[in-house]
């Protein structure tokens, strides 16, 4: 996996890239809180959100396909929750039922809301990390007094995600070299071994990478990343951003 799998466009030069990291972080989180907190919202609301996302993509020159392929990750997580919603909600027309499970019109609506909102939230995050270098996002978190352990965890996650992937590629290659098919139950057991040693190996590698960071004077503070002073222009941008969110909220009450 490429290092920049998740943030290939972070170092662009568009106007959106040029916005202050703190402004973007605040706006993104406010946007996510807004979509998560609205219970019922109509088609117009989603259309408005989609428009906002599309405008950001175009302005930041991020290809739509890139966003779509990266946002697929929500499907296993949100999909699971959506299916359980769909099978357990009651109300409206019942299309099918069996024992405690039923598919109803209410359930379907709830499930699609959940999917749509999860996708919007993930897309917003993808746009944030693709318009702001990761160390600046972390620095912004720091100015908002997010706990340093949490920041450290985030920075490690970002650095080690690709290690996990690389390590798994290496192990699969090593296995395929000496593997010529076998009974399913054997394959299953082998998969178990593979996964457990993958985590162990990645863990040990992260430990050694941390040694390398420490031996080059790292103390977790990212002291060299400096954000510019918070200017009036930034305040203005924030006001514009939050006005947009208020309009979105207003649309959701239609």
């Amino acid at each position, binding site marked *: 996996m490429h290092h920049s799998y998740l943030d290939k466009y972070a170092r662009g030069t568009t106007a959106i890239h040029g916005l202050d990291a703190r402004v973007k972080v605040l706006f993104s989180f406010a946007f996510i809180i807004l979509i998560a907190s609205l219970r019922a919202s109509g088609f117009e609301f989603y259309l408005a959100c989609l428009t906002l996302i599309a405008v950001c993509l175009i302005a930041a020159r991020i290809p739509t396909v890139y966003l779509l392929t990266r946002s697929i990750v929500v499907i296993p997580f949100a999909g699971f929750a959506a299916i359980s919603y769909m099978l357990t909600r009651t109300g409206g027309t019942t299309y099918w039922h069996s024992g405690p499970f039923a598919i109803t019109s209410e359930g379907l609506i709830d499930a699609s809301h959940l999917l749509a909102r999860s996708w919007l939230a993930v897309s917003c995050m993808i746009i944030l990390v693709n318009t702001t270098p990761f160390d600046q996002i972390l620095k912004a978190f720091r100015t908002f007094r997010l706990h340093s352990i949490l920041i450290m965890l985030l920075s490690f996650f970002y650095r080690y995600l690709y*290690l996990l992937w690389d390590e798994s590629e290496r192990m699969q290659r090593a296995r395929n070299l000496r593997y010529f098919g076998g009974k399913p139950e054997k394959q299953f057991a082998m998969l178990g071994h593979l996964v457990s040693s993958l985590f162990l190996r990645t863990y040990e590698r992260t430990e050694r990478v941390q040694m390398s960071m420490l*031996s080059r004077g790292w103390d977790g503070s990212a002291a*060299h990343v400096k954000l510019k002073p918070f200017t009036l222009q930034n305040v203005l941008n924030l006001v514009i951003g939050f006005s947009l969110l208020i309009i979105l909220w207003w649309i959701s009450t239609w």
Partner: protein
Amino acid sequence: MVDQPLIKAANLVCEHHDGTVALDDVSFEVMPGRSLAVVGPNGAGKSSLLTCLMGFLKYSGEITINGQVLTSTSVPQIRRVMTMVFQDPDDQLFMPTLAEDVAFGPNNLGLSSDQVESRVSKVLDRLNLSELRDRPPHHLSFGEKRRAALATALAMNPSILLLDEPTANLDPATRRELAEYLAGLDATLLIATHDLEFVKALCPRVILLSKGRLITEVDTSCLLQNTALLRNHRLA
């Protein structure tokens, strides 16, 4: 005034997390400007010795670096003057691009961005890596990674540099250039290696480890002539 040793290890016993004892009662000194080689068969404890000196392993005994006793409080200070290149370059490189990886150390030293950039360009240039500066380091060839790992350490301008198998997987010309380059540095080196030619070019003294114990400390020329000793410890 008599120079004090840059590195002093006294009765060093050191074990890994799982309890494997990697070094058993090892003592030696490295004087300023007198680079030292650490040789010995596979599993002798060479890598463990270097990681231990960097303060990454549990140990008993005493380690003094540049007059400072190695403790958990002095270790950040010590790592500003002494750094290490790991045996496996994949352990060393972790930033999205090579240039950023090389800049990582100087940034942590608190240099201005201009100073950082000039160090990065200089080091990359010296190691013939300038063309690769925007590539992700973990997608380089192994020999390139090895030079890249070295670049990340050299950019720290260390006065003590620990190198773990620096010549493994390098082509002969690169190896020769590396030796010339290291010889021209202002740093004192501690090199763990099997490459006796390389040792001859850079280090006047050698310590020989085997099974975690220090067998002998001698002049490099003496060791090279002692074929029996070399054979006994799988070095020839």
